[in-house]
């Protein structure tokens, strides 16, 4: 599949990139690693007339800690994050997720900015032109129907990024920069509930940095992912859980749980977290947690992965993640 023709510009700075993206004469998209964008362009589902390559902007791939906060430049590759001693030691949950995403080749190109801003995915959408020609266009392609939720007037595409459930559990924020200034947004507030646009960015706005606060001290984080194969594919469900023991060593002082790829919007499962907080995590409590948390999730089918199946998977991942995290805090 040939890429369609486009104008290619290399930005030398964030300011330049913002200016290149806001041009009324052309449709422009930013390119980071390009590992998802180029596939979409080959399939004819992304059709920018101009690509603005952010790869040449100095310093945009830095991974540093400042005053306890991990600051990851949007262009840092998943490989670099997974291999970073700083991230491995102090934010191991994030390193875990970065190591599990995609394949080695893709991790060497894909960036955290691209992963956070990942275009929502659907079996009926992320296909070649040839495949999509076999049926009338879906809502997202300007047609009249959604093939996933019959009768819907909204798009139910899913956000399938591996780093996002961990970042939600870590209560990360992102920095967005445009010509009119910059803003810091909590990742929890970044995503739209439904619809093809996962994130509402202002025209010419770029995500430049991911800011991750210190995880709960002596808390332990686990990221588990369910997919049709152990590598390459996007997750069908991803669960991140952080639990922390209290002073007494018996009760759970803090719990943070997030799920991705099951719904259009990645979610913190706060009602489930409430069940765990202050409790001794025995079988009964964890079971109640799993039931409460799983009910916060309304799974959307993905081909033959029907909602009941996805719900079962989410329950199993929640159980395994919290049990494992709790076990590991024992040994801290």
């Amino acid at each position, binding site marked *: 599949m040939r890429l369609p023709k486009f104008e290619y510009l290399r930005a030398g700075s964030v300011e330049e990139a913002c200016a290149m993206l806001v041009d009324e004469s052309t449709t422009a998209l930013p390119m980071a690693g390009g590992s998802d964008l180029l596939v979409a362009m080959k399939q004819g589902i992304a059709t920018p007339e101009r690509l603005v390559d952010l790869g040449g902007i100095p310093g945009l791939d830095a991974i540093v800690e400042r005053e306890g906060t991990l600051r990851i430049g949007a262009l840092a590759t998943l490989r670099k994050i997974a291999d970073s001693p700083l991230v491995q030691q102090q934010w191991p949950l994030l390193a875990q997720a970065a190591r599990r995403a995609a394949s080695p080749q893709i991790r060497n190109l894909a960036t955290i900015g691209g992963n956070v801003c990942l275009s929502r995915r659907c079996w009926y959408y992320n296909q070649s032109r040839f495949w999509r020609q076999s049926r009338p266009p879906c809502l997202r392609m300007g047609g009249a129907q959604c093939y996933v939720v019959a009768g819907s007037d909204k798009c139910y595409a899913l956000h399938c990024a591996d780093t996002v459930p961990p970042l939600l559990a870590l209560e990360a924020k992102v920095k967005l920069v445009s010509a009119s200034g910059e803003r810091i947004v909590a990742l929890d507030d970044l995503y739209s509930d439904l619809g093809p646009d996962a994130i509402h960015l202002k025209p010419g706005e770029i995500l430049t940095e991911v800011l991750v606060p210190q995880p709960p001290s002596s808390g332990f984080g686990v990221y588990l992912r369910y997919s049709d194969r152990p590598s390459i*594919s996007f997750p069908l469900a991803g669960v991140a859980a952080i639990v922390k023991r209290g002073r007494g060593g018996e009760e759970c002082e803090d719990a943070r749980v997030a799920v991705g790829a099951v719904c259009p919007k990645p979610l913190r499962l706060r009602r489930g977290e409430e069940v765990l907080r202050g409790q001794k995590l025995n079988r009964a409590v964890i079971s109640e947690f799993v039931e409460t948390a799983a009910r916060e999730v309304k799974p959307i089918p993905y081909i033959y992965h029907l909602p009941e199946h996805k719900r079962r998977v989410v329950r199993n991942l929640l159980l395994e993640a919290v049990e494992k995290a709790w076990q590991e805090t024992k040994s801290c």
Partner: protein
Amino acid sequence: MKEVVSLRVNGETYTLALEPNVTLQEVLREHLGLTGTKKGCDGGECGACTVLMDGMTVNSCLVLAMATRGKEITTIEGLARGGHLHPLQKAFHELGAIQCGYCSPGMILSAKALLDRNPNPSRMEIQRAISGNLCRCTGYVKIIEAIEATAFSIREAAREG
């Protein structure tokens, strides 16, 4: 609009006038005649197009030629030295790790990237290193054995040397 791009491939510099929509895979195969790099899925899901860029594996179908400025590209053609096969190539050949051969260039380059940074990989580490390369013929067993054998022989040669 074509732009002049200089690419470093297997130690040589090539200067070409290219449109922006040309991928590294297309440059290597169609402009430079280096057809060792294969076209499989063309979408980053099979690894047949794997090349090394600054020593790291990438899917060349997902890299714009324009974005390779200043990078060192290594293809399968760049492994043999002075007519002698690289130890990985010899092992793949001798241990039956090649059937149709289509996954082999990408597989070998993924293995090379692994052995270059980890001369004593475990079986798990080998499996992880080739997890982005699909093979429909061999069932992976002999590929993994060939990589293990190469690692062993490289370590032995280093000890005796």
